[in-house]
């Protein structure tokens, strides 16, 4: 954790916008108990800084800083933590400014844009086929979806949507669904990790690796596949791929019926790694 700061005696008991409570976030600034002074501060913070350039207005969405956090007298101690972007669990793409009341996050602000690498602009200088190589890098946990959405758009423009071979469409759907499962596994794995249940993390990433093995067999890479192309897919399935997919699916499905061995497809199974972790 970096940027740890303790603010004393200047907090409000009722924060206007809470992520971690039951107050609907879209109704910020209207909660009872927030003082006018606080509202003014939040109004200012809500508008991103901007400056004019020859290319137009450029906004700075930084997430602010902890010294902007002001409040009323009330809670004796409030901790404001800057989390990310260089934090193991935000891995360089997201910055969060968290206000903590004990262990409870009472407010979270986000600073986004760290993943911006000019992907869309770069695509304007490449061919339509090369564009797939760029969109697949927009999300390395679920790249197949990016490729498919882009290719569907290009095909619609080309007017060849009806001409896509059935086999290519089936392969696309199959890859998307495998990718969806591997993406959800990272959600479960990191969700456990961030609560200290490292067994959930190792199990989640292990199961995900089985699916990435299948993707590697088909596309040649674990991620950044650039496999789905305008007009179909880059290549046919290699020899033995169907058997490997069937094997992986059946092992996942059979494990689902065995809570002790498969923690992630069964609800009661979620407890197993959790309970075995020496963590209270």
């Amino acid at each position: 954790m970096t940027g740890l700061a303790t603010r004393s005696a200047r907090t409000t008991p009722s924060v206007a916008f809470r992520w971690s409570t039951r107050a609907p976030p879209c109704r910020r600034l209207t909660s009872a108990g927030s003082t006018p002074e606080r509202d003014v501060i939040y109004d200012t913070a809500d508008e991103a800084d901007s400056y004019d350039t020859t290319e137009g207005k450029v906004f700075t969405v930084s997430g602010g800083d902890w010294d902007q956090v002001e409040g009323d007298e009330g809670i004796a101690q409030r901790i404001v933590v800057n989390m990310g972007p260089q934090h193991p669990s935000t891995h360089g793409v997201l910055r969060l400014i968290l206000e903590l009341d004990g262990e409870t996050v009472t407010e979270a602000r986000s600073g986004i844009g760290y993943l911006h690498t000019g992907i869309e602009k770069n695509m304007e200088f490449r061919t339509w086929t090369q564009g797939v190589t760029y969109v697949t890098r927009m999300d390395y946990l679920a790249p197949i979806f990016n490729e498919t959405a882009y290719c569907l758009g290009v095909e619609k423009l080309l007017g060849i949507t009806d001409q896509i071979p059935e086999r290519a469409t089936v392969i696309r759907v199959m890859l998307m669904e495998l990718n969806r499962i591997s993406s959800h596994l990272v959600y479960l794995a990191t969700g456990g990790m961030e609560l200290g249940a490292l067994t959930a993390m190792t199990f989640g990433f292990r199961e995900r690796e089985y699916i990435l093995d299948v993707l590697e067999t088909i596309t040649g890479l674990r991620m950044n596949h650039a496999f789905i192309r305008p007009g179909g897919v880059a290549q046919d399935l290699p020899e033995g791929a169907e058997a490997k997919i069937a094997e992986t699916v059946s092992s996942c499905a059979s494990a689902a019926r065995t809570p002790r061995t498969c923690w992630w497809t069964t609800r009661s199974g979620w407890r197993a790694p959790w309970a075995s972790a020496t963590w209270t």
Partner: protein
Amino acid sequence: MDNSIWMARTVGVGYLDLTGCMALGMTGPVLRATGPPGTCARRSPTAGYETYEFEVATQTSCDAYGRFLIRLEEMEQRLNIVEQCLDRLRPGPVMVEDKKIAWPAQLAIGSDGQGNSLEHIRHIMGQSMEALIHHFKLVTEGFRVPAGQVYSAVESARGELGVHVVSDGGTRPTGCTSGTPRSTICRPCRP
């Protein structure tokens, strides 16, 4: 599932109801944790999803725990789609027939590990000058896409992933903008 540590940190946390979701444009598991089975795979079928049999996981708790349950359930459901796909795989082409669009070089694993199909190389290098020209033009310049703009979307792991593609009729996109569910999910957080 009923682990008290997990429950304490997810139940009632990150509450966002249907009204909030609609105001913020949320899709995917966050939206489905509020009740409606909204997936754009159903709403605007793409990639042939309408022909597969699958349920859409929903919850009504509007919180992080509901989203967790949705993902658990969804993984099981989507395994079924993969099985349906395996049943449907029939031999056939995987690229459109139009040679003006289809990528020409089929890769083939050679003795050196990888490379272009030797048959294809033989064809363009030794048999047909026109094939060589066509290959060269398609690979270096690319194909032309009629002018216009379209929006296409798929239901990704985290919600609706839309792409807005604009063409001026050339071999390169005039613009390509992605509307990703990742950025939408950041909206409830104050910037």
